[in-house]
């Protein structure tokens, strides 16, 4: 197993993602700089959180044009697995690898907290059977309000492309449990083919004993099709 973590100049969760993969999962992982034009041989490419190029215009708008993203698009088109976390999710939407867009939170403020997420039947990798029905993962973003036109939403649902939805502690998907105004409480999605994933919550902030939850490990494992540890 080998994973690459992209580094844009304003990435600031690159180290967290690398630590989650190396220390949390114990797999091989390394960085790829945004100015590089080739990717190399990996089982997973993580587009980490942060503020890729400052993101003053629109989150991910400029990152999309970076040299490494051409390689990422090609990798995804060959069926390679790509995970965008937070800013990474925004970048993948801007790059057209995932449908929809992320706009400013409806509270017009940044939100840092650890909500519950209801796991949807999203395919062989992300599903309640491999992850459990309810997760807790930290969020930290100002623009995580997922938007998609009604036809697009219907398609997402029809194809099982919704990974998680913000929920309350009992797993109910309510308006009060929605931290940013996302349509249908959507917190994460995948592409239709099932190899590109985007999520606002941070599995990379949920793997160590002192983190608010360790559910991030299960998320990475399901994605990499790693078995859960025997004692779990």
């Amino acid at each position, binding site marked *: 197993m080998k994973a690459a973590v992209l580094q844009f100049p304003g990435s600031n969760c690159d180290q967290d993602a690398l630590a989650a993969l190396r220390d949390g999962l114990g797999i091989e992982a390394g960085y790829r700089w945004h100015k590089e034009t080739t990717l190399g041989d990996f089982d997973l490419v993580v587009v980490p*959180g942060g503020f890729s190029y400052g993101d003053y215009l629109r989150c991910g708008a400029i990152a999309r044009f970076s040299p490494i993203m051409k390689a990422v698009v090609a990798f995804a088109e060959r069926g390679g697995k790509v995970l965008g976390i937070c800013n990474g999710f925004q970048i993948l939407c801007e790059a057209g690898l995932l449908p929809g867009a992320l706009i400013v939170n409806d509270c017009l403020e940044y*939100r840092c907290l650890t909500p519950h997420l209801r796991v949807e039947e999203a395919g062989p990798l992300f599903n309640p059977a491999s992850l459990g029905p309810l997760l807790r993962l930290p969020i930290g973003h100002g623009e995580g309000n997922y938007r998609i036109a009604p036809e697009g939403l219907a398609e997402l649902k029809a194809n099982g492309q919704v990974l998680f939805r913000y929920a309350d502690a009992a797993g109910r998907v309510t308006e009060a449990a929605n931290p940013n105004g996302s349509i249908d409480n959507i917190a994460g999605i995948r592409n239709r083919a099932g190899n590109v994933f985007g999520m606002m919550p941070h599995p990379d902030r949920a793997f160590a004993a002192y983190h608010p939850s360790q559910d991030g490990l299960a998320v990475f494992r399901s994605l990499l099709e790693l078995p859960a540890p025997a004692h779990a």
Partner: protein
Amino acid sequence: MTRPPLPPNPDPVLNVPLTEELIRRHGLLDEEMARIRELLGREPTLTELGIFSVMWSEHCSYKNSKPLLRLFPLEKAETGDGPGRILVKAGEENAGVIDIGGGWAVAFKIESHNHPSAVEPFEGAATGVGGIIRDIFTMGARPILVTNSLRFGELDDPTVKRLFRGVVAGIAHYGNCIGLPNLGGDVYFDDSYEGNPLVNALCLGVLRHDEIKRGAASGVGNPVYYVGAATGRDGLGGASFASRELSEESQADRPAVQKGDPFMEKLLLEACLEMMAVPGLVVGIQDMGAAGLTCSACETAARGGAGIEIELDQVPQRETGMNSYEIMLSESQERMLVIVQKGREAEVEAIFEKWDLHAAHVGQVTDTGRMVVLQGGSPVADIPARGLTDEAPVYQRETRRPAYLDEVQRWDPASLPAPAAADLETALPKLLGHPTIASKAWVYRQYDHMVRASTVVAPGSDAGVVRIDCGEAGDRYLAVVNDGNGRYCALNPRRGGQIVVAEAMRNLVCTGARPLAVTDNLNFGNPYKPEVFYLMAEAVAGMAEACRAFDTPVTGGNVSLYNESPRGAIDPTPVVGAVGLLEDPAHLTPSHAGRAGLTLVLIGGFPFELGGSQYLKIIHGLKTGDAPSIDLEIEKTQNTFLLDRIAAGDVAAAHDLSEGGLLVAAAEMVFGADGVGVSLDLTAADGPRADALLYGESQGRILLATTPEKTAGLIQAAAAAGVSAQVIGETTGDGRLEVRLPGGSKGLGWSVDELHRAWSGAIEQAMHRPGIRS
């Protein structure tokens, strides 16, 4: 000695004669002008006048506060080579550095951006964060966290709301974008700060001992580089009027506020750390903060005992036609000055190119001891560097004890009517619902407190705790806290100063951390008012006494004076940031007792007093009484005792008693834990007034939760250590806070849920905007 005048400045506007008016408006006294002429051996140019004016301002020279700062201990009394040893002392460099063991160290410092935030809260606060982050990475440290201390007027005022919203959003914007977790801080709301909010930001970074960098220029001929953002006319600040009036451009085009670019700072941070990691590449480095290029150039030269020469034509400029006055005094953000080892210029340039940043070769180190500024090859300023820094004037200001102190300290609680049970009951939700005491989640949920994935205790507890990865040396767990009750300092500055430090220590100890050192920010009014200066002198003396008592040296800090609104000076508000280390992560102790069946033990007893309390303020509208009592020796003993009991595994939770007193602390300990309540038996606590018992703010008190099995041992250990400890109740499963009072009266009771709602919703509701979901 007389020297020939400099040639005329290329910008004719700067060649006007230095009139009385110009000199006065640069804030320079006659004696200071005489000193300048003596240092230069001639009349200064206008550019030089500007340079002296900013370097000899309070902000850069500490001319009025230096004598007071000498009171602070700069090193640990108890020497040894354990954690806490001072590696870089306060005043030596941009930030102090202390040992945390295993060859690793932390650099940390607090700084204010009060006045810019009053003018433009968002940008003012944001650039405050940016500035303090640069002070830390200029030391060679990787910043790993920030905290902040905020003071505003009462939150029911719309202007205060606007400032509060803007400041918090600005801090969030800058810190979140760079990717530094915000681990906490404090916020007070009080009339005294109306019109003059306080915005103090702290940053802490980590480095190995052998990575410490100095802000010193040395090695004649070594090139001087300017790196980062281009220079604009921003923040020409207090000294700008001269050039503003001299040139024709309208004032509106030259705002005194700077705007920050956190993305730029992130690039600068990474590029600088990458450069500093290459052995031998960097000779010296300093950020451009207040007084920008001027301050970094003359300070590095003075520290290195060298001279420096810079050519302004080489300085990257954002605007056209900037003159030497403007370039030298600009406070554009996100810039650094770097002295590079000669012959290795290409290596530095390659690193900055990688990060798409300017790296401009603007000059070199000389052996003249002078700061020479050239434009188009001809000198526009030529000043002995030390004349601007070490030889800046220092004054002993006059002090006078304000008359009001005697009056407030004489206040007798007996002058208040004795409270009825109903009054005691209604007081608690009111206290919990006052923004000063209420939950600050509205603030810290806007701050990313989890980025870097190293946050062990997020904001909301007594102190934030972060894990530090020290490579081969293993992990370290560091606690950080801000404290600064200005109300106590207003009522009794000496005692108030002691309390500021003691409270910070208590907060660290409650999380299980052993205190190491503090940084301080002295926020006061106009030092030329003898009453204001008295308050400052006394508060600093009190802080210094406490620092010595706890053996926690001051590693650095900042002074912010002239904090006044038309109504007068703010409450004297020294703020400290304190750090401590957990010897073992297992010692981490929550301030929250999340389950029923725990015994509650009060450390520090029941002194009966109400002076300076939030109860007096919120319930009776009074700002009076003496500051609460404190005994530094007792506190020290208690802190040691508590750390010992934590290490022994006797403590399930610990929370210090601060604003609001005993009941507020007890309620906070069980908030958010479903169905958990508290039952307190205070029948043995006989005293003159029940309100003082419940809501007084006597210092040195901690509420502990422990298991019933461990209770007897804990009480015994306390007796052996000479610490006052008594069982006062337990946590229950009925979701109620119940209190039995002395004298067999009926007792008081509240629903914890309702109290929780008052506490968690107060700021939220005050800041709610119709039509926007919160």
